[in-house]
């Protein structure tokens, strides 16, 4: 158990920037996820924390101890790889006991710890088997038991579920969360899968092109994206470019991060009520983001429930089961609207005009909305 602190950690490969000035504080017992597209530097960061890669610059601390120059074996970490990476020539029990045996622990003490770990991951009795005689999910659980056996200060996960099939991923991600909670280990978890990150994290770090885009809770990241990258990487989003026409209110809460500013933004022919954590003045270029599920089809008389109501034509209806996706042309732009699957019956293409209602949009300054597309990031 330990806190982890990264201070301006940087990794360059020649001219290529893999990670730039990465700052992060992880509290004792916290599970923080590094989330981002492939090539964003999340795995590089994790490997630097493990000591498998040496940072070009910056320091890494476990509690108050500077571990930057220590090799992995002296950091007392538990690293779970993408593949289980069980030693194929050793039995499951010998794999779990490996970390203790290289530290010279007594045989009976190791055997007792191995039994304890096997029970912890629900594989009691599997000790004598070879890894090849177990399924992928069982192997990854053995890999978990193997890192927990040494009682590490920090657990590091490098996309541990990406090699498994979908059903297994769902059950195993809760097993990981459960084990992390029960052992109260500080954990850093790397993934490119948004639902995985949302399901298990205390906090999420969204990364892009070697930099931190935003650090926050699930609701912060989803409902209050601070950059265009976060707004578009996490789930689907409608983006509306516009200009601040009026400042409606600016509250003066002491904590600047919690302040709410309200604006009226014009976007083409539309005039929209918006909000933001960031201040803006009249004439600023902004981008307003609107989640497809935040839009509702308005029946007569419902208008008062929404701060914004616009009219548009339904261009397409795509039935997806639990939800139906509408493409609605509003003024000169197309908005994606997600409605409950049953609503599809009353809505059809070319039916004519519908009215869409929604509350304040989240806006960010236009310069923060300029994003590096995931495909443009050098691998």
């Amino acid at each position: 158990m330990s806190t982890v602190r990264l201070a301006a950690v940087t990794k360059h490969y020649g001219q290529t920037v893999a990670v730039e000035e990465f700052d992060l504080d992880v509290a004792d017992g916290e599970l923080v996820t590094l989330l981002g597209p492939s090539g964003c530097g999340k795995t590089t960061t994790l490997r630097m924390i493990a000591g498998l890669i040496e940072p070009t610059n910056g320091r890494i601390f476990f509690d108050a101890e500077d571990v930057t120059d220590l090799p992995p074996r002296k950091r007392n970490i538990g690293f779970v790889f993408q593949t289980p990476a069980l030693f194929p020539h050793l039995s499951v029990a010998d794999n779990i006991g490996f970390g203790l045996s290289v530290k010279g622990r007594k045989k009976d003490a190791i055997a007792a710890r191995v039994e304890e770990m096997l029970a912890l991951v629900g594989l009691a009795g599997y000790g004598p088997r070879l890894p090849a005689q177990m399924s992928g999910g069982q192997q990854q659980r053995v890999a978990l038991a193997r890192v927990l056996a040494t009682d590490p200060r920090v657990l590091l996960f490098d996309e541990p579920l990406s090699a498994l099939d979908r059903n297994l991923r769902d059950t195993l991600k809760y097993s990981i969360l459960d084990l992390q909670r029960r052992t109260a280990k500080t954990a850093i978890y790397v993934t490119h899968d948004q639902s995985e990150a949302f399901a298990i994290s205390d906090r999420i770090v969204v990364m892009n092109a070697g930099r931190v885009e935003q650090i926050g809770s699930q609701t912060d990241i989803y409902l209050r994206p601070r950059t265009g990258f976060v707004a578009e990487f996490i789930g689907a989003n409608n983006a509306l470019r516009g200009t601040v026409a009026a400042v409606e209110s600016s509250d003066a809460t002491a904590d600047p991060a919690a302040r709410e500013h309200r604006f009226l933004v014009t976007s083409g022919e539309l005039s929209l009520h918006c909000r933001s954590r960031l201040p803006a003045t009249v004439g600023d270029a902004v981008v307003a983001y609107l989640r497809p599920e935040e839009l509702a089809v308005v029946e007569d008389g419902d208008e008062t429930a929404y701060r914004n109501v616009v009219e548009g034509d339904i261009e397409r209806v795509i039935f997806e089961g639990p939800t139906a996706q509408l493409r609605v042309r509003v003024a000169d732009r197309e908005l994606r609207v997600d409605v409950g699957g049953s609503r599809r019956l009353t809505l059809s293409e070319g039916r004519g005009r519908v009215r869409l209602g929604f509350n304040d949009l989240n806006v960010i300054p236009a310069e923060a909305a300029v994003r590096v597309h995931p495909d443009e990031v050098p691998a």
Partner: protein
Amino acid sequence: MSAAGSTTATAAPRSARRRGPSPRRLVDIVSHGYIWLCLFVFVTPFAALLGYSLTGPGGTYAIQNFQYVLGSFGENLFWSFRVSALTLIIDLLAALPAAYAIVRYPFPGKRAIFSALTLPLYVPGAVIGLSLLLTYNFTYHLTTSIWGLVLAMAVGTFPLMLSPIVVALKDLPLVFEEASECLGATRWQTFRKIVFPLIGPGVSAGLMLSFIIVFNEYLVTLFVHPSDITTAPLRVFNLVRTAGLAPTTAALAVTMQLISFAAVLLFFRVFGTRYLKGTYLL
């Protein structure tokens, strides 16, 4: 041989049902003929040698020839074994760190160095023998001990030991070493407990190839052997040159052949399936 025989047995009834010789049947006949021709060409000399080694005085059958091998030629076989064992030890101790460096670490001139290390594979034995004789004689004065011979053998067989280990290491994902290191193992513990067992098939392939070459090496031995050491292949050649071909000499040759076969069989018995599958995973 048995494999070729069983193929014929299963193919024959199926093609017999057809009327007239089809093109496929012709190909069958030609290819089977080719296999038998190859067997004849390659096996006949060894069969003749085996027959001759069992011939007693006056053309009688004589197992005594082999008892004579253990008596009179025992010393020669013993030298061959000793030279082989020492060579394999030196080869292995040099090849393991070399292979590890070549596969796991970037360094300038890596390709050139690897090519230079495998050079003895393409240099004629006589050239190796002569150059080693010059080097050892004038530089190290080594030709009077077994070590000159052992070093010469090690130089010649080093690439045979190195290449399979390099291939095995290249096939071994780095993640096993990383996992071991993260679990607290030192580099030496990681090598001894994880890397070495997992490249076992490559190491044993190197050992087998080198053993067969060293055990049977004649040409290089001729150049660098000290006068009091006569290995088995050298003895065979000396006897044929001075006393003509005797059945006892043939018996020594057959014995050497059988030892080489035994090495190959042992290798495939211990590592065969794993090595042929190309994987260290069971």
